């Protein structure tokens, strides 16, 4: 199991009842790595000591239904759907939570087991306001699937139809409909174990039990970071994103509106899953065609502003390094933190507000795009910015919050009007009768269609760091990055380890290229320095790094750290297709990296469209006056306590 998929028991504040439990047994001491024999329904298998019954059954291809279990989360053993009979034990055992420490004989579908599972499912259905027709999870609902699998044909213990909770729409990102909640607590475990945020918790007791925020406040008023990871792991329709599709359709249908869409790299690697494709099937160019069929006036590639972000953020880093290394300024806010993940940004604003100066002031690619569309693009095409609608296709729930931040209106308008998730776009395609995988290819529209491989890899954890290093190393050292890393692939920052660390000694420096001449005279002050960088994804890992920085550990010595709010980075974003798992995210990442390889230009500072933008619009260069006005932002110290 890779480290990404498991929570961090050493930092988690989750109750032990919800953590993986270390099994201390006499057998375990002598037999580390030992195998135990298990007999399941007559088949024998040997499994590592401590493996669960569920894992053993899966190894044998024996299906045991589950509900509260999730590959990314520690086992809870609370829904009891997965109960099995263990020989010699009176009670049935939850197979997802039962560690095998001695030889066991197990039966998975005896009369007792079948009756118990049916009863449990009937009980779950009796408390679930099941409005399948009108639910966005229709045909992608684990409760619905279980009902089919168990052959449910009646509501044996009744069905609740009256609502007890008001649908909470207070958050820009996440809508909570607690009448559909079946109390599996995946959201709770996601929020506290996987993300170390902890805004959701089980409250009250008995049949009054409910998942609530602090004092049941609206989600928009608590320390939720909008990552939407809870949505991806909810088995039912209790959690969903705030869907703007209806408003977007209306604006598409309005002839006075010029509706443009930018598409981020992660959705194209995942949207196929909504149409029956295997995870990791990239549909970039089919999606362009589909967006035009829907009626979007222009289809742009967010990678363009990803490249722009690299220039702005990379420049900002070089300026901070200059202050620290050349001028000896101890106040230079290093390490610099990336700021393109709005979930991470809000996490920092809540939990480590004292480190806001370390956040790059560069806006995220989404917001840069909005600002450029409503200024430069409007100017180029003689359009009234008030009539331009910018939609951002994102893998992300937090982008919906980000585009609604009051400070994100530097173009004079709301820079980005709507954040649209991968799931929501797939739904729009379906509604329009578009069979995405079978569409012909088409390219992005100019002038923002040209991007580089560096922009694409923003979609995976480590991608921003890799893109930044490709540019910074080359700009500073004056040699092709390929001389240092084969195919310009900086493998040490890739992968799914929760935290990665890399040191890059700068042995030689090159001449300052024209773009940077207004800022520095030479790179000599960097010669002999060692650039220290790190990557963390999922806010639980971010917390580890931040706690280390607070304690003055090795991450405090870093110069640049990439933080992504979601496990796996954007490909695992809260707006991506459901379900998610470590395997699915790995497949999406492969799609991203293969797309990078296919690009002719793979470094942001060589993107001709970006260079053109600096030549004709942002003429005072990276981090210049105009780019500061349009492409940079500021943050809000929110703290962890709500008024």
């Amino acid at each position, binding site marked *: 199991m890779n480290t990404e998929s498991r929570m961090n028991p050493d930092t988690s504040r989750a109750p032990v*009842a919800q953590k993986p439990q270390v099994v201390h047994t006499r057998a375990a001491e002598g037999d580390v790595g030992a195998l135990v024999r298990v007999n399941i329904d007559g088949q024998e298998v040997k499994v590592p000591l401590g493996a669960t019954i569920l894992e053993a059954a899966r190894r044998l291809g024996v299906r045991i239904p589950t509900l509260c279990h999730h590959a990314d989360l520690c*086992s809870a053993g609370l829904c009891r759907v997965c109960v099995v009979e263990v020989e010699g034990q009176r009670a049935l055992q939850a197979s997802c939570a039962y560690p095998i420490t001695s030889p066991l004989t197990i039966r998975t579908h005896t009369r007792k087991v079948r009756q*118990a599972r049916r009863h449990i499912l009937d009980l779950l259905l009796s408390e679930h306001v099941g409005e399948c027709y009108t639910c966005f999870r229709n045909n992608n609902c684990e409760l619905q699937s279980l009902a089919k699998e168990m052959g449910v044909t009646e509501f044996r213990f009744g069905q609740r139809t009256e609502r007890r909770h008001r649908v909470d729409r207070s958050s820009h990102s996440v809508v909570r409909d607690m009448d559909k909640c079946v109390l599996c607590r995946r959201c709770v475990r996601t929020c506290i174990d996987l993300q170390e945020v902890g805004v959701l918790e089980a409250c009250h007791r008995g*049949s009054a039990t409910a998942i609530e925020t602090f004092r049941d406040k609206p989600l928009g008023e608590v320390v939720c970071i909008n990552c939407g990871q809870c949505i991806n792991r909810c088995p039912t329709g209790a959690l969903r994103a705030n869907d703007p599709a209806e408003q977007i359709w209306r604006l598409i249908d309005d002839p006075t509106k010029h509706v443009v869409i930018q598409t981020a790299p992660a959705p194209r690697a995942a949207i196929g899953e909504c149409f029956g494709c295997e995870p990791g099937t990239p549909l970039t160019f089919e999606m362009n065609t589909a967006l035009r069929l829907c009626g979007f006036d222009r289809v742009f590639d967010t990678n363009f502003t990803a490249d722009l972000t690299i220039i702005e953020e990379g420049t900002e880093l070089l300026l901070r390094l200059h202050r620290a290394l050349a001028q000896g300024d101890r106040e230079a806010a290093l390490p610099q933190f990336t700021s393109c993940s709005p979930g991470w940004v809000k996490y920092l604003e809540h939990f480590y507000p004292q480190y806001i100066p370390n956040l790059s002031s560069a806006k995220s690619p989404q917001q840069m795009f909005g600002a450029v569309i409503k200024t430069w693009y409007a100017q180029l095409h003689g359009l009234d910015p008030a009539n331009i609608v910018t939609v951002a296709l994102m893998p992300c729930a937090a982008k919906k919050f980000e585009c609604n931040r009051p400070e994100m209106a530097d173009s004079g308008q709301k820079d980005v009007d709507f954040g649209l998730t991968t799931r929501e776009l797939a739904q729009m395609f379906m509604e329009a009768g578009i069979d995405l995988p079978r569409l012909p290819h088409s390219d992005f529209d100019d002038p923002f269609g040209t991007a580089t491989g560096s922009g694409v890899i923003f979609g995976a954890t480590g991608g921003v760091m890799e893109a930044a290093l490709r540019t910074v190393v080359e700009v500073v050292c004056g040699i092709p990055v390929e001389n240092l890393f084969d195919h310009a692939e900086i493998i040490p920052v890739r992968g799914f380890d929760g935290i990665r660390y890399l040191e890059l000694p700068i042995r030689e420096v090159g001449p300052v290229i024209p773009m940077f001449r207004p800022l520095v005279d030479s790179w000599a002050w960097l010669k002999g320095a060692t650039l220290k960088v790190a990557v963390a994804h999922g806010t639980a890992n971010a917390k580890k790094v931040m706690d280390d920085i607070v304690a003055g550990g090795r991450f405090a010595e870093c110069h640049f750290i990439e933080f992504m709010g979601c496990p796996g980075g954007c490909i695992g974003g809260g707006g991506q297709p459901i379900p998610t798992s470590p395997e699915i995210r790995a497949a999406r990442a492969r799609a991203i990296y293969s797309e990078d390889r296919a690009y002719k230009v793979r470094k942001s500072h060589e993107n001709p469209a970006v260079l053109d933008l600096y030549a004709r619009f942002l003429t005072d260069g990276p981090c210049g006056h105009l780019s500061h006005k349009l492409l940079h932002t500021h943050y809000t110290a929110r703290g962890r306590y709500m008024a």
Partner: protein
Amino acid sequence: MGTGRESILFREAEPDEGLRKAVGMTRLEIISQVRESGLRGRGGAGFPTGSKWNFAALAQDPLKYVVCNADEGEPGTFKDRVLLSERADLVLEGMTIAARAIGAREGFIYLRGEYEYLRGHLEAVIRRRGEAGLLGDDILGTGGFTFRVAVRMGAGAYVCGEETALIESLEGHRGEPRNRPPFPVNTGFLGHPTAVNNVETFALAARVIALGAEAFARIGPASSTGTKLFSVSGDCARPGVYELPMGLSIAELLREVGGEEAKAVQVGGASGTCVPRAQFSRRLAFDDASTGGSIIVFGPGRDMLRVARNFMEFFDEESCGQCTPCRQGNHVLLEGIRKLEAGVCSMAYLQELRALGETMQLASKCGLGQSSPNAFLSIVEHFKDEILARPARVQAELS
């Protein structure tokens, strides 16, 4: 108290005789004595105390804990309260012996929220014992035997009497049972081996060491040795706390307390079973009518369906809400009882509810859900005629 019979807990005895003996014994000798005495947990589950201590003693961990479960929450149980107020020294003596046996240096009394008034008393006893060299560093001058005890308050959740939920609560979390295995004797408080025992168990263990295993095992049947405290309430002339030998029959107990007229007795509180008059020859023992102490007597005039509803209302509120069978099952059973009361429950549905009760016994995560349908199931089984006669009565009352 006091029945003329031999008392283990309330007899006149040399203070701390058990502890004085225990400090001269090896860990193995203490555990062997407790094992040979046949002492089983007095909280209700009846797990052999010697085995529990043995598991905790064998666990490899420099940090271990002893926890006294004083969250006496079973409806109809009030015997631990008596022990804590009148025999606190004996309870602490037992905890100290347990610490000696398993190798713990720290312990807690997890005190029921409603027993807050006992806290000062217990802390005073702990202080006094510390001053007397019976707690703290170098207990009884043994050189190196250290054991400290602190009182921690519960906050009123019934489920916190379940040992893993108690530990969660002790750690400051919402009181909810953990998955077992691993068991607390291996992975307990803060992940360290922890022996959790009932108040009465500790008190008896101290006496076992003082009197010797044999003297203890002589009382009661082989499956259930020693005496037991019974909290007797309900329709009887002399309710109260009784120390009686294990294995006496329900009829004998009823004679003792003046409840001969009873039509049923709830043995083991809300989570126990309802025994009808025809079965009053059953014995109060772990292998027969088992109880953690609660005995509730129902006189001839009691409406048994109302009794069942009362219990189910309790569980509907007190289920921790974690696992499906308990959280929702208790609710469905309660609704079923309301249907029966209203005379609108079909026989087929009643059968379904009984099957659901069995599922709850089998599939719930902890002892709460596994035992919560007991009262309902036994009342439906033994008082079916009374219940089925009811719709007519309701009709009559309405007209």
